[in-house]
């Protein structure tokens, strides 16, 4: 079978998976953790503990602040020291719950053993409720609450569950290691997800640069004897793991502008999310940790670590020998879509999948020069947009033209700036333009809604 890929654009950065050989090992507990109440897309959670409270690992410390929101659990056992604003990795003040670590005592009812539980409960509603209570969010980057994704709006029908194991970002290896080391759990998680969505077929998509993972997962599926789950080897191409791109590659269906994947019958979950689903449903274990790749050519002690949520980033790096002198930038996530860390005292959140250290030479942007109209940005754009045009419109704040040219379809993958020979900061401007276009669309929708309501009255 020929390897599949998405139909428009894409780039081929060197995959640099230098930490692929490092097994996932747990990071010792930090003395203090800071757990953010905004670790997901949607409304921030509301703290439900008070300063001075004793908490255990896995105990709920913040409750959802709306439907699109998630439970947050303590990742350590200890005493709540403070609840208040603290700068996140971008330097913005966000409410954090500070917990001083005392021992490692888990809350009751959580199965902390390694035994594989393959029996899947039959009640789908109960499963989704368990996922909700487990605070599971999409760990592929967007941190969208999983239970919302698993409750499709009435009228839509899921036809396929896709487990995203592409890990198309260079350097990242945590999903790869998870597939190798926790393959059974991931496959059970996938089976749970496909059962919840109505026993639809399930595809585990893995990029071709991870042949070991492909072979291992195929073996596991055979061993566990699950039906309806297949492994699909994908072409190595960035952004293969983009939700819309992956659906296009696997199902040959394109999700429309502003539409959700379910509109074409797809539900996509990341590998780490599938593992979190397994933990939440089979072991009653909420998300308290995530595997984090710590890597970079300039970083000698590359590792894949299992890190508790709320651990300060500086603690993780110090554990591995500190930041080397020639590192200029620390990135949370991969080099294409990750965010540069402005504040090393920021704490790890559920969605943190990697810390990447790059040197000045690797990451410093070259000075911008004139556009030579080569069209490489448009060729690279996986959404079929024209970044050279959008950046100009954005600089002029031409909202109407931005919307007409679909600036709001941008997925911020970074292919345009990556491939621009003139080093024009395309994505910086397109992102700004996307914001303007989205604002206009939202304002119009709100106005239409208000008008409709007024008409009703």
């Amino acid at each position, binding site marked *: 079978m020929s390897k599949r890929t998405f139909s428009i654009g894409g780039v081929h950065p060197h995959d640099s998976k230098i930490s692929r050989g490092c097994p996932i090992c747990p990071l010792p507990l930090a003395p203090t953790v800071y757990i953010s109440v905004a670790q997901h897309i949607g409304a921030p959670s509301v703290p439900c503990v008070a300063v001075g409270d004793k908490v255990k690992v896995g105990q709920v410390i913040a409750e959802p602040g709306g439907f699109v929101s998630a439970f947050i659990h303590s990742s350590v056992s200890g005493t709540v020291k403070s609840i208040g604003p603290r700068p996140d990795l971008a330097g913005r003040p966000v409410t954090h719950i500070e917990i001083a670590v005392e021992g490692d005592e888990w809350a009751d009812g959580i199965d902390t053993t390694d035994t594989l539980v393959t029996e899947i409960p039959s009640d789908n509603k109960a499963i989704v409720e368990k996922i909700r209570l487990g605070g599971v969010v999409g760990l592929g980057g967007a941190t969208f609450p999983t239970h919302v994704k698993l409750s499709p709006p009435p009228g839509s029908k899921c036809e396929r569950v896709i487990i995203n194991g592409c890990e198309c970002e260079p350097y990242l290896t945590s999903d790869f290691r998870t597939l190798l080391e926790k393959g059974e759990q991931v496959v059970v998680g996938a089976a749970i997800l496909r059962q919840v969505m109505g026993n639809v077929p399930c595809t585990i998509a893995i990029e071709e640069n991870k042949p070991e993972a492909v072979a291992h997962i195929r073996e596991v599926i055979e061993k566990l004897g699950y039906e309806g789950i297949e492994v699909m080897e994908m072409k190595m191409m960035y952004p293969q793991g983009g939700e819309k791109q992956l659906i296009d590659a696997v199902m040959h269906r394109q999700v429309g502008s502003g539409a959700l994947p379910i509109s074409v019958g797809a539900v996509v979950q990341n590998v780490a999310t599938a593992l979190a689903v397994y933990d939440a449903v089979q072991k009653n274990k909420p998300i308290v940790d995530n595997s984090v790749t710590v890597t970079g050519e300039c970083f000698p002690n590359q590792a894949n670590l299992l890190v508790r949520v709320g651990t300060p980033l500086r603690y993780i790096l110090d554990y591995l020998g500190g930041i080397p002198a020639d590192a200029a930038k620390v990135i949370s996530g991969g*080099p294409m879509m990750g965010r*540069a860390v402005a504040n090393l005292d920021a704490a790890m959140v559920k969605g943190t999948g990697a810390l990447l250290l790059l040197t000045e030479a*690797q*990451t410093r*942007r070259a000075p911008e*020069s*004139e556009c030579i109209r080569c069209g490489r940005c448009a060729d690279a754009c996986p959404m079929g947009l024209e970044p050279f045009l959008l950046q100009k419109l954005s600089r002029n704040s031409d909202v109407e033209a931005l919307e007409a040219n679909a600036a709001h379809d941008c997925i911020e993958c970074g292919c345009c700036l990556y*491939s621009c020979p003139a*080093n024009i900061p395309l994505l910086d401007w397109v992102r700004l333009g996307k914001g303007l276009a989205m604002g206009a669309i939202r304002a119009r929708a709100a106005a239409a809604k208000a008008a409709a309501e007024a008409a009703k009255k």
Partner: protein
Amino acid sequence: MEKLLVSPNPHIHAPVSTKTLMRDVIIALIPAVICSFVFYGWREILVMAVSVASCVLLEWAITKYMLRKPSTIGDLSAVITGILLALNLPYTTPWWVVMIGAVVAIGVAKMTFGGIGQNIWNPALVGRVFLLVSFPTYMTTWGAPQGVVDAVSGPTPLGAIQEGLMQGASVQELTSAFNYRDLLFANLGGSAGEACALALLAGFIYLCCRKVVKPWITLSIFGTVALTSLIFWGIDPARFTDPLFNLLTGGLVLGACFMATDYVTSPMSLWGGVIFGVGIGFLTMMIRYFGSYPEGVSFAILIMNSVVPLLNMWFHQKKFGRK
């Protein structure tokens, strides 16, 4: 590390810059340049040297003393303009005419519009056409090749045919004087770049392999030229030249491979590029068959250059998930 460097994503960049792209184009032009040296000897070397040097110096001087901006000669685009201009001139062109061409190419066609990326017309072609209409004597006196290879002498094939047709001869008689193998491998009077079609094609294939340019524009020019001349030739072979002859003469290969594919002055979208190429091919053939100039590639490209903004406005890439 003192302070963390912070910037939005992406944090890495492809190993590509304007300079590397231009360097690839220069590498692709090397076979053609070498061929022109071999066929036309030291005078061609002189033309080339004067052309490249004046283009680069002029761009440097204009950016430094008139625009007061950082110099852009580092991106090598002026070198390419110089090489292309030289390849578009007969090797007998006096050095001062070459310099005037460079002044028009860089000074008028490129820097007046704001430098690289802003010009509407291909600078080298503007320089060439300016010289063609201003100094027709120098520009159409095609001396016989003087290089190390034995070569036939005389006017350009297209020029000879137009003259012959005016005197009442038929095309068959006239084309029989030319050997297509010679056309492919050079040895004809003409501008230096017309010397060896094969060398140009080799360079173009290199550019395509390095993904510097996409072949659509060039292929659609070749296709249109072949098709148009096939139709006319089929109607009256005594009046109109045949397709192969048209493909191999009059700088068509040079124009289609290196002038029409210039990033700045060609459309960005696939279909825009195809329309652009078809337009060039068709206009070239119309000028050749019905115009007063024997060769039409330069004019056709310049005319289509003017339409590029419109083509960019009309033709867009297909957007994901939209009809």
